């Protein structure tokens, strides 16, 4: 599982994806601006691979997930699932493809219908996609799902409120697996859980990936969990990906100053280590009026003149690592040193 064949075509490919939300200031008045939530994002995920999207609130990571699923319609760009373009096809044709990509949300309390028993929650996707030809086959599939997420089979007779947060998240995962998905988008799927339960769910996701060859798009702000579960990481800031690298490279030698600051800010559960924290000044700017040039230049400790005017593009900075930063452009190298 750790050896993802490099030559295999990606299961999911996202090219220059954009999602801008119009701002309407009042009734009947026109559009007064846009929230540039996702502004040109490209990445791919191979079969059996986990790609994590990390970043702080408002960076657009959840919007990417929702736009890929077409819970939100993209403003521009392309989304390809297993060689088929899905961002522009009619919803009627998208429906059978939805079987292959499912989502697990953060809040296990609000994402399950409180009036349905677990059995009905799990039966719905199976019958919707016509995956069981008889009642007994349906029962078998449901029992199998309960086994997969390590819940007792007889728990299908209960309602969501009878379960703890961790168990409910298991039900959410079982529902995502129900139609036989290839790709699961986990949107902060373990963020609301307590430490001891979080570990259970993280382990479960890893096990399921190994068993079923799932691809995961793991959206999270928790870098320690991400480091544990992922193969590759994409770091987002204000609607853009600023760095993508395989896990070890990113955590050992981050190249973008934002990634560096983000990693250094994570508190480490060991009082004997005192690292040099890079404390960023101020808050994330508004995605309605993102800064000119590099969007990070207002908070970047290394920013120089070029950063204010010219937007850096993602370029390869090491094998398996791309970063969008002028510091790593050979052209501006002398300037950077001087600054």
């Amino acid at each position, binding site marked *: 599982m*750790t050896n993802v064949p490099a030559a295999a075509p990606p299961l999911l490919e996202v090219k220059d994806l954009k999602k801008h939300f119009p701002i309407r200031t009042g009734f009947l008045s026109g559009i007064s601006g846009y929230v540039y939530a996702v502004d040109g994002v490209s990445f791919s995920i191979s079969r059996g691979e986990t790609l994590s999207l990390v970043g*702080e*609130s408002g960076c657009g990571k959840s919007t990417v997930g929702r736009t890929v699923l077409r819970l939100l319609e993209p403003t521009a760009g392309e989304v390809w699932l297993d060689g088929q373009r899905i961002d522009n096809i009619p919803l009627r044709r998208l429906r059978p493809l939805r079987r292959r990509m499912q989502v697990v949300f953060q809040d296990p309390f609000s994402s399950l219908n409180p009036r349905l028993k677990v059995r009905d929650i799990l039966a719905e996707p199976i019958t919707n996609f016509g995956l069981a030809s008889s009642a007994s086959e349906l029962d078998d599939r449901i029992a199998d799902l309960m086994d997969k997420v390590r819940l007792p089979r007889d728990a299908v007779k209960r309602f969501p409120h009878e379960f*703890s*947060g*961790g*168990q409910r998240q298991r039900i959410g995962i079982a529902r995502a697996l129900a139609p036989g998905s290839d790709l699961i988008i986990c949107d902060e799927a373990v963020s609301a859980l*307590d*430490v*001891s*339960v*979080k*570990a*259970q769910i*993280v*382990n479960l996701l*890893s096990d399921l990936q190994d068993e079923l060859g799932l691809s995961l798009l793991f959206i999270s*702000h928790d*870098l*320690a*969990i991400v*480091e*544990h*579960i992922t193969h590759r990481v994409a770091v987002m800031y204000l609607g853009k990906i600023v760095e993508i690298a395989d*896990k*070890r490279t990113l*955590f*050992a030698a981050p190249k973008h100053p934002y990634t560096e*600051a*983000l*990693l*250094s*800010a*994570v*508190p*480490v*559960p*060991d*009082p*004997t280590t005192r690292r040099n*924290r890079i*404390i*960023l000044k101020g*808050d*994330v700017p508004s995605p309605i009026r993102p800064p000119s040039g590099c969007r990070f230049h207002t908070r970047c400790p290394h920013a120089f003149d070029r950063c204010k005017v010219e937007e850096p593009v993602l370029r390869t900075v090491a094998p398996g690592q791309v970063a969008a930063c002028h510091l790593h452009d050979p052209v501006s190298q002398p300037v950077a040193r001087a600054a």
Partner: protein
Amino acid sequence: MSLITVDSLTVQFDTDEGRITAVEDVSFAVAPGEILGLVGESGSGKSVTAKSLMRLNSDNARYAAQSRVVLHLDDRKVDVLSLRTGREMQIVRGGAISMIFQEPMASFAPAITIGDQMVEQLVLHRRISEKEAARVSIEMLERVGISDAAKRFGQYAFELSGGMRQRAMIAMALSTRPRLLIADEPTTALDVTIQAQVLDLMLELKQKVGAAILLITHDLGVVAEVAERIVVMYAGRKVEEARARDLFANPRHPYTQGLLGAVPKLGSSLEEKGRTRLSEIPGMVPNLKKPIEGCAFASRCPIATDLCRKVAPAVEAKALGHFVACHHAPREAIAA
């Protein structure tokens, strides 16, 4: 001498579904100027414990008769749980103790400016003129790193960003010069880069103002960064107390051990080959609606015996300054 001592605190809540024991026989003390971390998962009773120090629990809270919370001020002792009227409670609420919460929006009145709120409490607790209070407030806002403090002073809470609101709340809490600041998950709602700013600020202010801090959190990383001593709670009970270094280097309660093992550490991928499993604590927290016989952790504990299921272990010193509530935690010889 301690600033505040909590002794045999037991808090129960009468609810429609019966009586819930949220905190059971918890004792600890906070020394002047120290940072004590109170750690536990949801439902461990850490927030109820903290709120008891200011009598902020809801009206259906019952404090058991033997519970004592004593605040040691320069000239007198205050028995917090015996305070009755609002006027009496001003000694602790906003006086000797200030509290900040996870959600700063909930701590500011939405329709009153930040400045007016800061001035009001200063006039009440420090008995200074409004003009003087305004000056102190703006100075405090500057000290917590809010730029353009005079302008922010006249704004409403919703006009500030999340990180700035948290700073303003810290400024308001510290402006009355409390002896103890209770911080209940102060950075949980913040992004890591903002969290780093706020933690730095708390450490800096603690040194300058000299207030003790009771930091309540579920985040072992946060507590490791700032706390000097740590109390670990589980299902309403104190299971372990030690200096921060000792707790992380040598956790002695099986729950603490499990908790530390369940947290992934940043940089783990650099040491290990491939992906390893996180250690799990099987099962879940017991239901607090029923009295728990024996050790509350016994049902999930890897080393539990019949003794654990029958007799609740007392909190005992197992090494110097290291207290554990476990029948099976080894004891070290303690030098006198």
